[in-house]
């Protein structure tokens, strides 16, 4: 109960802050006025309306990334599994630039399919490489396979865009990892993917709880471990792939949020999944606001802020982990 009200309050606060703050700060009264009364045409009201889609998008994108991270960590039983660690973002980038360069795609919905495909292929590829050999996918193996693949893929991205100035311009707009470009049209395009992903995530929580005890125990409890892995991965990729398609790569939200939420509500996935959604939403919206404030008069992409604050969490995990489990 406390958790629910705390979540509701923090999200509401984020929404208002996101609408009110930026290179031009607007009073709370004016924000409420614009939201609930039609016809206000003052300059402030226009600014608020302008900020509305990005606010909505940062809430749902953050929620999706948080849940995606929680899913991937549960499925791989690996504390550092995260879309950015698994190289998913770079994979999505490569597919999108190839799409722009070779297939001349230019609409949000086309971006999404390419990004989703890239995300899925990369995630599976990295996980396969990281889980080879003794001990399965240990954090260090997974992180390295991801880092290595990312490095390789980003070279390819550069190679694709470098000779093509037009692609470079289209891509630069996409690649920054920002929620600022969100439009209602874009949000509506990705929404179905995100909703499906979230529903699957919520439905699979009992099985994920069983999976946390290890494959053997989970099988003993009647869970089809292979199936739940596939379904969970699918949901995770849908969530982060669709978000990445619209916002570009946003790092570390999926890594840190589940860890922070675990401190609040314990290891039960039925709490972690919804709380990661809330936490991700709050984190990404706050990062977006911070980016607007310290970047003023321009703005700093939310992805840069999350990377800066997320990386220390990765370092902390590494420091606290037992040597053997690395």
């Amino acid at each position, binding site marked *: 109960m406390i958790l629910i009200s705390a979540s509701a309050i923090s999200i509401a606060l984020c929404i208002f802050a996101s609408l009110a703050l930026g290179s031009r700060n607007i009073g709370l009264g004016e924000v409420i006025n614009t939201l609930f009364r039609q016809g206000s045409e003052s300059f402030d009201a226009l600014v608020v309306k302008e900020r509305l889609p990005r606010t909505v998008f940062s809430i749902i994108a953050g929620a999706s990334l948080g849940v995606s991270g929680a899913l991937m960590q549960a499925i791989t039983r690996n504390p550092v599994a995260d879309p*950015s660690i698994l190289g998913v973002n770079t994979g999505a980038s490569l597919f999108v630039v190839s799409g722009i360069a070779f297939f001349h795609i230019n609409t949000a919905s086309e971006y999404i399919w390419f990004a989703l495909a890239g995300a899925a292929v990369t995630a599976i590829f990295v996980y396969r490489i990281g889980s080879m050999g003794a001990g399965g996918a240990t*954090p260090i193996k997974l992180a390295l396979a991801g880092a290595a693949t990312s*490095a*390789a893929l980003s070279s390819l991205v550069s190679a694709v865009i470098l000779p093509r100035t037009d692609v470079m311009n289209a891509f630069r707009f996409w690649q920054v990892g920002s929620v600022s470009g969100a439009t209602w049209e874009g949000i509506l395009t990705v929404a179905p993917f995100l909703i499906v992903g979230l529903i699957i995530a919520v439905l699979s929580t009992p099985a994920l709880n069983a999976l946390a005890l290890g494959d053997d125990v989970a099988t003993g409890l009647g869970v089809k471990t292979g199936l739940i892995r596939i379904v969970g991965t699918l949901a995770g990729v849908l969530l982060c792939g669709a978000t990445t398609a619209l916002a570009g790569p946003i790092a570390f939200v999926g890594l840190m949020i589940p860890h922070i939420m675990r401190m609040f509500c314990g290891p039960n996935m039925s709490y972690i999944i919804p709380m990661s959604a809330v936490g991700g939403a709050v984190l990404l919206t706050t990062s977006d606001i911070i980016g607007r404030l310290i970047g003023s008069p321009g703005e700093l992409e939310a992805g*840069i802020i999350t*990377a800066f604050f997320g*990386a220390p969490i990765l370092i902390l995990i*590494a420091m606290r982990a037992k040597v053997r489990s690395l």
Partner: protein
Amino acid sequence: MIKDDFNIVKSGFHKRRVRFIVVTLIMTILTLILCTSMLYLGNTKYSPEVIIKVILGEQVKGASFAIGSVRLPRMLSGLLAGIAFGMAGSTFQTMLRNPLASPDIIGVTSGSSVATVFCILVLNLSGSIISITAVIAGLIVASLIYILARGGSFSGGRLILIGIGIQAMLNAVISFLLLRANQYDVPAALRWLSGSLNGMSMKNVPVLFLVVVIFGCILVLLGRHLKILELGEQSAITLGLKADQTRILLVLSAVFLIAYATAVTGPIAFVAFLAGPIAGRLAGKGYSNVIPAGLTGAIMVLLADIVGQFAFDTRFPVGILTGIMGAPYLLYLLIRMNRTGGAA
């Protein structure tokens, strides 16, 4: 009977030494061939006599500029940076006993990159100040990673994970700097960041040469100690090695090499990471790997630059070529290491 046994041991040592020497020689010759090709290839091809004349300082119309001011500095910067990357990478990998622990993966290079980008974009500096700042930043990052990873018992795996985290943070800082910078300065920084030998001038070469010679020699001389450090802390102490001193000297020299070279050419992807393992496979594991790794680094950079310049319609910076050429080997290495359980 016993005499025969002795011969097995002796002939084994002998074979491996011959292999090491032959491989090193071939690498040297290959490096020289690539260096010469770098001078020869280009829009206008000059005869060997002209090239020699230019190098000896004679003025030849056209050639003096094309070779003396463009191709020669490009070749020398690539050669020296390649050697520096290869030696430093191999030293880190051997010392930390993990092929993935090279400075470009654990964030040392990123530290230097941040410093360089900061100098270019914010302080509008150029020249040797940048290099010095890059070296200092590299050292700070290296010691930071070391301190963070040290807690409790020293673990290579933890160090790498922490390095990846630090690298992510530093990359965020670079993005921030690029965003806040004056638009006119950004292309210079971007070109530098992708690792390019374009526009190298002679003015960086003498100091880079000195750095490579001094710290390269230190690493070569420490090679014998490095081989002992590779056996782990306990064995090293037991064999009478001053482990801490040696390690500090090695890190200092390797960071100097990699940071200084990075400041000049930019971070050329994968060279530091791949040179050591490739050299090790070719030259064998019994001998110190520093010299073959340096040569392999030079070969990688020069070859990639030649391919990048002349193989395609677009001229690619060398860093992108090494990135693409290195990727398959990197994945192969990861797979093989995971199979044998050699990682971390």
